């Protein structure tokens, strides 16, 4: 019963965020359409640039051009989900911490976790990339002649969730530095997420192992699209298990959770000597 009530509560919170996103879109339609179009064009440009290189050279590092397309599709869908759930500063959390704005969360009768999970949901303004990804997925699956079974679809969902976990956990892990250095680390989540984003759209197949290994461990850009898409194509790279991304996601999520909690404890003991009155809501 308690679980059901909690799920309903989460759905209601997601619904109010979605409603606010919709009314924002309908209110500023001109700008919203411009923004969505720019998002789609930008993402298609990233996909097509790498895909065209793959077509020109008959594949990249042992991946055929269609496999490269599939990888780019995976990346586009992840980007879509990220923008759908992280449109506020709930994933770029170092901004909220660095600006001394966590106190806005403390006065709500909800766990901080639930607030952060639901407050950035914007399916209408942030869902365009996901839709583009879905359309391109159908094209890539047809070109690759993949046999789509319910298990394969569940695997796709599991890998996308895994990638999202890695993105969020890494953002929260590095953002924890903002508890201790609020001014210097205010934008560190942006660096961790956005500045490394483009690296994640390049196929690492064919690269030497000393480049591939760091990119699936210390700087896990290889787990953003390359590794999981190869797993979904039935050939996990580097002789690793197909479950490696899940294991990595679990470990980084546990570490991030521990470090973030330590940071929160530091925050409520030391307080924030900085408050910026803008940008705590989208």
């Amino acid at each position, binding site marked *: 019963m308690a679980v059901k009530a909690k799920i309903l509560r989460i759905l209601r919170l997601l*619904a109010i965020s979605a409603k606010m996103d919709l*009314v*924002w879109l309908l209110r500023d339609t001109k700008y919203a359409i411009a923004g969505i179009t720019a998002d789609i064009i930008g993402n298609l440009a990233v996909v097509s640039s790498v895909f065209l290189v793959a077509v020109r050279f008959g594949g990249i590092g042992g991946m055929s051009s269609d496999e490269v397309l599939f990888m780019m599709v995976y990346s586009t869908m992840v980007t879509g989900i990220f923008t759908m759930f992280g449109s506020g500063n709930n994933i770029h959390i170092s901004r909220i911490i660095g600006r001394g704005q966590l106190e*806005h969360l*403390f*006065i709500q*009768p909800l766990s901080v976790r639930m607030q952060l999970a639901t407050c950035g949901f914007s399916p209408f303004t942030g869902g365009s990339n996901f839709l583009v990804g879905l359309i391109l997925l159908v094209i890539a699956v047809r070109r690759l002649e993949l046999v789509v079974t319910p298990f394969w679809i569940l695997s796709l969902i599991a890998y996308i969730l895994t990638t999202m976990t890695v993105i969020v956990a890494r953002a929260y892990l590095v953002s924890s530095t903002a508890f201790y250095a609020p001014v210097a680390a205010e934008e560190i989540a942006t660096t961790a997420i956005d500045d490394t984003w483009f690296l994640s759209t390049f196929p690492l197949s064919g690269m030497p192992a000393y480049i591939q290994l760091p990119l699936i461990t210390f700087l896990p850009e290889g787990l953003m699209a390359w590794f999981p898409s190869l797993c979904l194509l039935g050939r996990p790279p580097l002789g690793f298990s197909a479950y490696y991304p899940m294991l990595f996601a679990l470990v980084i999520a546990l570490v991030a959770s521990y470090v973030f909690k330590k940071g929160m404890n530091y925050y*409520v*003991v*030391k307080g924030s000597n900085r408050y910026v009155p803008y940008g705590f809501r989208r």
Partner: protein
Amino acid sequence: MLSKDQTDMYLTASAVKINNVSKSFVQWQRDNTRRGLLRNLIKPEKRTIKALDDVSFEIRRGEFVAYAGPNGAGKSTTMKLLSGMLLPSDGQIEVMGKSPQKQRRELMKTLGVLFGNRTELWWDHPVIQSFEWKKVVWDIPDEVYRQNLELVTDLLDIGGLLKTFARELSLGQRMRADLGMMLLHSPELILLDEPTLGLDVIAKRQMIDFLKRINRENGVTIVVTSHDMDDLEEMAQRILMISDGKIAYDGLFAGLRDITGNLTRVAVAMENDTVPELRNASLLSSENQVHEYEIDLSCIPVKDLMSQLSSYDGIKDVEIRKAPIEQVIARLYTSWM
């Protein structure tokens, strides 16, 4: 909100209980000398600031309490401790029978918090959208929301603001909208930190009247901080005065006046170079033909003061206001010696 009958029942219960609470902060010290820069690198210099020093007090339900003190006295720290934003270094805190640190979520259902320099409104949405968001987040029942929305719209006169974007409101309008939003979940205790900061006379008056009304008619316990004695005396019956992290006075305003007198500042603007000489008043400053005096109005009635001033030609303007809080505290300390 509470009915009057419920309010009577509450009078004996405690809304806020603070026992021997201390809160210290560590500040980094740096100087710009070469030696200092090197020293900072190896062994940074730190200074411990005691924002609250063994503070104890209790506020009963239904009270309207002014929490006063000069800037940096520890007012905002106390508010943050009461609302679970900070942990005390030492001591126990109980708010509405709950621990703000351990039972934050439950407490927030009965607590309303408003900081004068912050807004809880969604910046890029109309005010009513923020209200609807609050309804969902606080899980406010439909009927309670409807009643409270009607109440705050009427009492705070915000009907015309509901469809306006928060970013387009003036400071006074924004404060009224924020106050209305804070009350939607029927809080039993309200913590207001400098709510009149930056407000003009009319906006201030509206806010003060509203707060007095919900305290009187609905039994809402209110704790309000300010460094402006005029505002506080206008609002509250009891004053808790804090200075250097310690409670300097806890009692009624009348009692404070008995100890410190009715310290007042009078500014007289002249059209000529005459400096009026006023009995039992000390001249504090004279600048650009504006002369400021310190007067204890418990010794000289206003009538006598005006009568003295009327004997001078060329008086352009007279302004009478309460002495700054720092001076009241200084007088308080002097009275103990």
